[in-house]
């Protein structure tokens, strides 16, 4: 078991050397690799990178995801027009087919235009920004909440643990979309509300994952060693326990980002997610639905392709990470 990219907790090293007889077997590999890192040999990060690159499909997924991320970040720079600046829109250009030229001949709409004469390509770039933004921030919040509760459950045990896990169990027995729907029906629309709903849906996955990892790690000798050294509990939890619980959590988090993006798109499509002022991909698709029946497929089709590409690329990366970070597949 090792963790990616992080410098290993120094305490673990001290603790390990203090109980050297035990540490030879049980200290996290990161401790030994700290020496190796100095000589430019294999570090956990490099090993993970090398393992990851074994799958071409995963590399393609990663490349696709990075490209999508770049587009989302750079949307205001690379978009042919600002799709939400009404001065740049011309109603005469509305519902043009992909590849059509604008009325004044200045612009080519590669992916067509919507009912307000908005360039779909630009709308998708901006939509990706919102979809990714909501997905990632919801995942980060859920991660923070889930990690805290899961660690608290594993470390404190007893009633706290039972309560947290029981709530998580009950929640996980309902489909995510239903819980999000209930919350949004009660809370109303808004970017903050959909993030709340997504966090409420997802925290339980992290809490469960980190708890089960922490329960395994807690019984290992390096934690015992740290406890023997009378380190404060907070230090043991955050510097020793948490870093070693991270690999499974990272895998869950990647997959959950994709799930969050898909769920947000679905909710926005239903008209429950984001308000019309925050046009995510789901809202773009929903907007094009009306024109679908008259054969104007592009208003819904291309945002859907962008959504699909985002979800598939994240899932490909997540699948490979699962294999790479799975301690059972390593020695």
């Amino acid at each position, binding site marked *: 078991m090792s963790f990616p990219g992080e410098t290993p907790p120094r305490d673990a090293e001290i603790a390990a050397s203090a109980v050297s007889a035990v540490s030879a077997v049980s200290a996290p590999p990161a401790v030994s690799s700290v020496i190796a890192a100095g000589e430019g040999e294999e570090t956990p990060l490099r090993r993970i990178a090398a393992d990851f690159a074994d799958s071409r499909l995963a590399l393609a997924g990663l490349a696709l995801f990075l490209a999508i991320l770049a587009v989302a970040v750079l949307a205001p720079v690379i978009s042919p027009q600002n799709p939400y600046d009404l001065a740049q829109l011309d109603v005469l250009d509305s519902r043009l087919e992909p590849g059509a030229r604008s009325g004044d001949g200045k612009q080519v709409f590669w992916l067509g235009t919507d009912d307000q004469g908005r360039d779909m390509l630009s709308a998708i770039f901006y939509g990706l920004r919102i979809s990714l933004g909501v997905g990632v921030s919801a995942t980060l919040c859920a991660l923070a909440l889930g990690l805290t509760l899961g660690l608290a459950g594993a470390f404190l045990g007893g009633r706290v643990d039972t309560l947290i896990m029981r709530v998580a169990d009950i929640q996980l027995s309902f489909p995510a*979309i239903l819980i999000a729907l*209930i919350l949004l029906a009660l809370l109303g629309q808004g970017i903050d509300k959909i993030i709340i709903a997504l966090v409420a849906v997802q925290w339980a996955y992290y809490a469960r994952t980190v708890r089960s990892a922490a329960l395994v790690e807690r019984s290992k000798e390096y934690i015992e060693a740290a406890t023997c050294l009378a380190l404060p509990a907070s230090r043991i939890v955050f510097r020793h326990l948490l870093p070693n619980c991270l690999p499974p959590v990272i895998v869950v988090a990647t997959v959950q980002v994709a799930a969050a993006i898909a769920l947000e798109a679905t909710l926005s499509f239903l008209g429950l997610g984001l308000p019309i002022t925050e046009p995510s991909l789901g809202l773009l698709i929903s907007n094009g639905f009306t024109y679908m029946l008259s054969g104007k497929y592009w208003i819904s089709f291309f945002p859907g392709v962008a959504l699909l590409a985002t979800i598939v690329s994240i899932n490909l990366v997540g699948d490979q990470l699962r294999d790479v970070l799975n301690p059972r597949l390593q020695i």
Partner: protein
Amino acid sequence: MLVYVIRRLLQSVVVLLAMSLLVFVGVYAIGNPVDILINPQADQEDIERAIKGLGLDKPLWEQYLVFLRQALAGDLGKSFAFNVPAIQLIVERMPATLELATAAMLIAIVLGLPLGLWAGLAPRSVAGRTIMTGSILGFSLPTFWVGLMLIMVFSVHLGWLPSNGRGPTTELLGVPVSFLSWEGLKHLAMPATNLALFNLALVIRLTRAGTREALLQDYVKFARAKGLSNARVVGVHVLKNIAIPIVTVIGLQFGSLIAFAIVTETIFAWPGMGKLIIDSINVLDRPVIVAYLLIIVTLFIVINLLVDLLYSVLDPRVRLADART
């Protein structure tokens, strides 16, 4: 066993109470109930009378008890939009949703089991790989977008299938159903396929994984050593043993099918509970929202309970009486 059932029932009641409390607080405390429940054109006197009449001047816990008592008596208020009892409205829409979910489940099982078996028996073959790639797509494709694409291809371009509604319904034991007439089947085809996709991928994966694992077991080797035909080994020995996880997951998924039907029903204008709840949320028809949420939670609790019981019947190794919950 009996102890387990009783314990689970008690647990279910607690969950249901907690949910009713959540929904109650959500509807009655976040939004101002006066705005929601009383005609906005009413004058001050009317409003005060209505507040008294509805018991809104009482403390919240007392209001909750009143709400609970009425809910237990099957009275969850009248829909603002339709002016009929909310429960009646939902019960009327329920057969449509159940028909859709059942059809989707059948599609997932009828296609998924053989495909999964095929992929499991020949994991390295072209067919096996194609099936697995397809199932990954089934997981990744956003359901609602696939629905739109189905409409685009089969309704708009090819014109084969109708894009919305249930079509004519036929009475079956007093319940209106679509699948008994050709026109109804045509209406059912696209929504059911759309709803089935995710579960199809799930059944394929489960069956494949189960098959691959079962083929390595001693009982399969022994069956082969006895000289049984391949069909019998796969059809009886393998299939019987992989049935347990598949039945469990299918059972649990039936609930999520009903939940996901919300999306499918909205796309295909299928007149079920899911479309009703979205319409009600859009016009803020609060009694219907509350009634829907309570009914669907009850439905889920019942499904979860049934699946757990079914699991213990199917798999004698699971000793429920010993299970500490």
